[in-house]
Each structure stands twice: as C-alpha cells, then as structure tokens.
C-alpha cells in the first residue's frame, strides 16, 4: 500500500512546494526531481503484490498505466525544462506564470495518478474533473486570444462532458445501491466487480451511455473531439505532450473500467457496437481532417484523435486479440505521441513557426532532430519495426477474420490517415530548408526524452517483456 500512496502524494506535495518557489530554473529542476521520485515509487510498485484498499486499487490494468504516466511525466518535465528556457528567452513567459505552470504541472500529474489508482467511482470523477481544470489553466497560459479561445472551448465542452459523466456515476450507484445497500461499497471498483452480476442491467446501460459520452469527450472521440485540436495547438508544447500522451489514456481508462462492469454483468447490452461506431467515426473523420491542416501541433492532435479512434474500435471489437491490441496501442501511442510532441516543440522553437510549410528540410538543417521526428512519425504511422505496427497488425488481422465488413473501413481509415502523415512528414523533414524566421537556431535542451521514448517503442515493437504480456492478457480477459 505504501508505494501507491507515495506515488499519489508526491505530486500533490510537490505542487504545493513548487507554488512557493519563485525561481523558475530551480522550480524546473525540482519538477524533474519530484517526477523522478514518483517514477521510482511506480517502479517499486511493480515489485509489490497487486493490492486494493478502500482508497486505492492496484491491479493488472492500472499498474502499467501508472508507471507509464509517471514515466512520461518525468520525461516531459525534462523536456519542459529546456522548453521554458527558450520561452523565457523569447519573452513569451515570465517567472510568475512559470511558477503557476510548475505547480499546475504537478497538480495535473496528481489528478491523473489519482484517477488511475482510485478505487472509487466518485473519487475518480473528482480527479478527472480536477485534471480538466488544471489543464484548462495551462492551455490558456500564453493569454493570447487564440489560447483563451481554445481554453474556453476546452473548458465548456469538457465541463458538459464531466457533468454527464457525473450523472453516469450517480446512475451507476443508483443501480448498485439496491443490491449492495447504501454506502461506499456501492461506489468501489473492487466491490462492484464482485456484485455487478446481480445489478439491474437497464440502469447500467443508461449509466454507460452517459459515461461513454462524458468521459468520451475527454478521450476525444468524434463527434465530441472538438476541444482537442485547439487545446493541443495553443497551449505550451509540454502540455500538449501530456494531454495526448496521458490525459486521453486516463479518460479511456475510466470508460474501460465501466466496460468491465458491463462485461461482468451478463444481462446488460454489449457496449461493443457503440464503441466500434464512435471509434470508426473518430478514425475516419480525423484521417480526413489531417489533410487540410497547416499547424503542425494541431496536425498531430488530430492524429491523436485518429489513434484514440483505433483504440476504442479495438476495445469495441473485444476478444483476446483485439483487447490485447488495444492495450498495447494505448501504451505505444502515449509514448510515441509525446515523443513526437517533444520533437515538434524543438522544431517549432528553432524555426519560430508552427506552420508546416515553413518548417521544411528539418533533416538538413537539424539532422538529429529531423531524423528523430521522422522516426517518431514513422512509428505513429504504424510502420514496423515499432510497437504500433504490432498492435495494428493484431487488430486488423483479428478483425478481418471475424468481421470483414468492419475491417475494411478500418483499413481504409488507417490508409487515409497514413497518406496525410506521409505527405506532411516529407514536407517537414525533407526538401530545402527555408531560412527566414528563427532560421537555423540551435536546439535548446536535451533530446534525451525524445530518443528514450523512441527506443522504448522500438524495443516494444520487437519484444514485449513477459509480465507486461501477462497483465495485458488478464485485462483483455476481463474486458470481455
């Protein structure tokens, strides 16, 4: 029990501490330090037996997500140290804002880790809402008209989403209460999983719809995705990285927990079709949206929507293979996409623009960064030998064997998105570099986070460690 408490408590404390540190350089270092501690605790967690208390639960499902979150949190903090240095240099941020930024960063980590580890529907909901609030504040950090516009949109849409999710939560309790009696028990995952079989399916269905729409808004499923691209495009890049890499996963994790309940309760409707439909919609829509994009961060935000669509589709299909693929894809996507955002952050800083046609010939002007970005995009496009290829391989093959008619639009959607990715990555990475604004400024900060992530994705594409596979398989079984 100790480790998980540390994992959750560290960010909370550090948020308080960072709020008190005026010097942003020191704050950045502390930020890294605290994230490192969290990650350490997460690793310790691996050693311990899966346990569940009244407050926290650690099982095969969230143990790796917690570790992943802590890891990406650390790498992002490293990246952000270099990033903010440049932002201060060009006077986009000042010390005061940065103080706020660092505090909020840790607060955000806290809410996400809490949402992942909470053993209680209500607590999880509160955590997700907290995550929304903190990120809204960070998206609007630059105080530009565009960023406020984006934050506002994000806030309203997710606010409504959160409200619906809360209603779903209440309904869930409403359904469980007659069986399990009043009290905390009826809102505790572990308890619910035990008794859910006897629960009235009608309310369960109702609840799931609200939860799907509510948390689905945060996952960024079409047609609830509208907030996502702008929030990614207008906020600081480290935030875009954690939004894509972590927050979406957390929201999806919530949906999946409820899917588990429905799966465990025999009589309830199969949530599969709903998720498949939304997944396909997101995939196809995002794939088409990619073509007209000019802003590189918004471009990759849409690619996140696309991948969330694929993952949701996978879980909607269900079955051991598809679920395995979905879980793997979650992990791979968060690693790869955050890596891409690191690269994009550097690229945007050295070129001084977010317009893709202006960031040309990156492999020529900044070879290491350019090839890093290229590899990242290759990975996200689902090309081997990277992890996403493995998950897409499993998903497409198993789907085609079971539901050929569903596999065809899936393949088409992936190809459409692929076309756009190739188009843009060639535009950004190759060709003659334009001098112009910023020209060929040197890269601020280290590229270690970028390549660390890419290395992990590469390894995962070739070889998955045994325990991870075991976890995936148990969860896949639970997800039905």
């Amino acid at each position: 029990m100790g480790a998980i408490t540390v994992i959750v408590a560290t960010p909370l404390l550090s948020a308080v501490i960072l709020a008190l540190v005026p010097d942003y350089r020191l704050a950045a270092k502390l930020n890294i330090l605290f994230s490192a501690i969290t990650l350490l605790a997460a690793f310790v967690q691996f050693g311990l037996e899966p346990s569940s208390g009244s407050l926290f639960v650690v099982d095969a499902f969230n143990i790796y997500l917690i570790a992943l979150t802590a890891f990406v949190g650390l790498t992002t903090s490293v990246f952000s140290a270099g990033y903010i240095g440049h932002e201060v240099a060009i006077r986009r941020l000042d010390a005061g804002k940065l103080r706020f930024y660092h505090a909020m960063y840790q607060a955000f980590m806290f809410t996400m880790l809490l949402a992942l580890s909470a053993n209680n529907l209500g607590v999880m909901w509160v955590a997700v809402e907290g995550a929304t609030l903190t990120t809204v504040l960070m998206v609007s950090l630059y105080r530009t008209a565009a960023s406020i516009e984006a934050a506002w949109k994000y806030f309203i849409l997710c606010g409504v989403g959160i409200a619906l999710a809360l209603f779903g939560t209440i309904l869930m309790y409403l359904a469980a209460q007659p069986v399990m009696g009043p009290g905390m028990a009826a809102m505790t995952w572990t308890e619910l999983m035990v008794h859910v079989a006897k629960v009235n399916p009608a309310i369960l269905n109702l609840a799931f719809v609200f939860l799907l729409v509510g948390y689905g808004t945060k996952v960024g499923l079409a047609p609830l995705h509208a907030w996502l691209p702008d929030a990614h495009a207008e906020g600081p890049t480290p935030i875009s990285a954690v939004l894509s890499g972590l927050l979406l996963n957390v929201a999806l994790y919530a949906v999946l927990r409820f899917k588990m309940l429905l799966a465990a309760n025999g009589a309830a409707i199969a949530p599969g079709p709903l998720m498949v439909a939304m997944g396909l919609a997101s995939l196809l829509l995002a794939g088409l949206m990619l073509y007209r994009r000019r802003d590189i961060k918004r471009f990759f935000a849409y690619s996140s929507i696309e991948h969330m669509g694929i993952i949701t589709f996978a879980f909607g299909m269900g079955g051991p293979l598809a679920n395995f693929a979905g879980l793997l894809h979650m992990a791979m996507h968060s690693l790869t996409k955050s890596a891409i955002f690191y690269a994009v952050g550097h690229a945007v800083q050295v070129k001084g623009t977010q317009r893709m046609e202006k960031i040309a010939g990156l492999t020529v002007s900044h070879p290491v960064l350019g090839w890093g970005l290229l590899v990242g995009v290759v990975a996200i496009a689902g090309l081997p030998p990277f992890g996403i290829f493995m998950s897409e391989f499993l998903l497409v093959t198993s789907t085609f064997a079971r539901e050929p008619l569903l596999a065809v639009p899936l393949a088409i959607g992936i190809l459409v998105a692929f076309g756009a990715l190739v188009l843009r990555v060639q535009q950004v990475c190759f060709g003659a570099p334009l001098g112009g604004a910023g020209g060929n400024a040197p890269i601020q900060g280290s590229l270690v986070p970028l390549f660390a992530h890419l290395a992990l994705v590469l390894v995962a594409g070739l070889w998955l460690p045994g325990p991870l596979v075991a976890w995936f398989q148990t969860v896949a079984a639970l997800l039905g």
Partner: protein
Amino acid sequence: MTDLGYDAAHMLGAVVLLMSFALLYQRRLFSLLHVFTMQALALAATAAWQAFSHDEPHLYITALLTLVLKAVVIPVALHRIILKMNIQRTIEPALGIGLTMVAGVSLVTLSILLVLPVTEDATALTRENLALSLSVVLLGLLMMISRRNAVSQVVGFMSIENGLILAAVGVAGMPLVVEMSIAFSVMVAFIIFGIFLFHIRERFDTLDMQKIESFRGESD
C-alpha cells in the same frame, strides 16, 4: 417510507422539472435568472426533504449549498455581470421557442421510455426520481444549445447540475454527494469567472469565421 414522504419528494421533483421547462420558455435574461432561482429553491427543498425523510444529515449541507450558491450568490453575480457588461437583455434563440418546447417534451418521453424497463427491485421513488432527473439533465443540455447567449448557457449548465443533484439526493445513502456538488460548483464558479475575466460575451457563438480561422493558424 410514508406515502406523504413519497408524494412530497415526487411533487418537489416535478416542480424542478417544471422549472426546466419554464427556463426553456423564457425570452428575457432577468426572468430567466428568476426562474432559475426558483428551480434552485425547489431543489434545495427536495434535498432538505430527503435529508429529513431518510434522516441523512449530510444532505442538509447539500441543501444549504444549493440554497446559498444557486439561489443567492450565482443569480446575483450574473445579474451584476449583465449590468456591468451591458449584455443585451433579450435572449436570441438559435431554435424557435415552439420547436424547443416540442424537443423538450420528446426528450422527457425518451427519458421515461429509458427508465420504464428499470425493474421493480429498484424502489418506485428511484424510478420516478430517475426519470425526473434524466429529463432535467437533457433539458438543461437542450437549453445550452438552443440559446446563443453566454449567460443563458451558464444557466443551462447549472440546470444540468441541478438535475444531477436531484438524482444524487433522490437515491438513498449516496456518499460523496456533498464533495461532488462542491467540486461541481467550483467549475460553475470558473465559468462565471471566465465570462467575467475574459469578457467573453458571445464567444460561445462567434460567427466571425475569419477570426476563428486566423486564431487557429489554419487560414491560407
């Protein structure tokens, strides 16, 4: 529980739903605020009554919160904002009032349809309560999308919240109701803060495409 208790709870819930309809019907901002205040009062009463009939003291807190925040603080604040930022007093609907009404009615029927199969093991109160709160939530959402005006949308948002709390207090012994309603109120506060700070009047519904596109760096 007694029939009286049941009827009273039912009646109060019905009042809340009625108020949602009334909200949809309003054309002027101030009257909108007044109706909303009434809905808040009705909700507070429900909460209090539930607290009394199931003797769950923490529901009194909910009632109190609702009373203070929704029935007093927020309406006053919004009133201020309207005057301060002289937002136009009439609500221009995106959807005709008549159509909105029809939509509202059909939403209510939908929610009843949805609740019907809820089997009898759940107490009758739960079912009624569920139907009512579901309708209130949906109507609130309808309110948000059928009005162009920021303030009226805030109101719609809060009436969604009312629906939530209605559901929450309706079911016996729901924990964390207070915490959640607090967390929620924080969000509402945020919205109002946002409107106030960033002078977002009609930003909900900016029709100036060029502006948005240039915001998003997507214009050619």
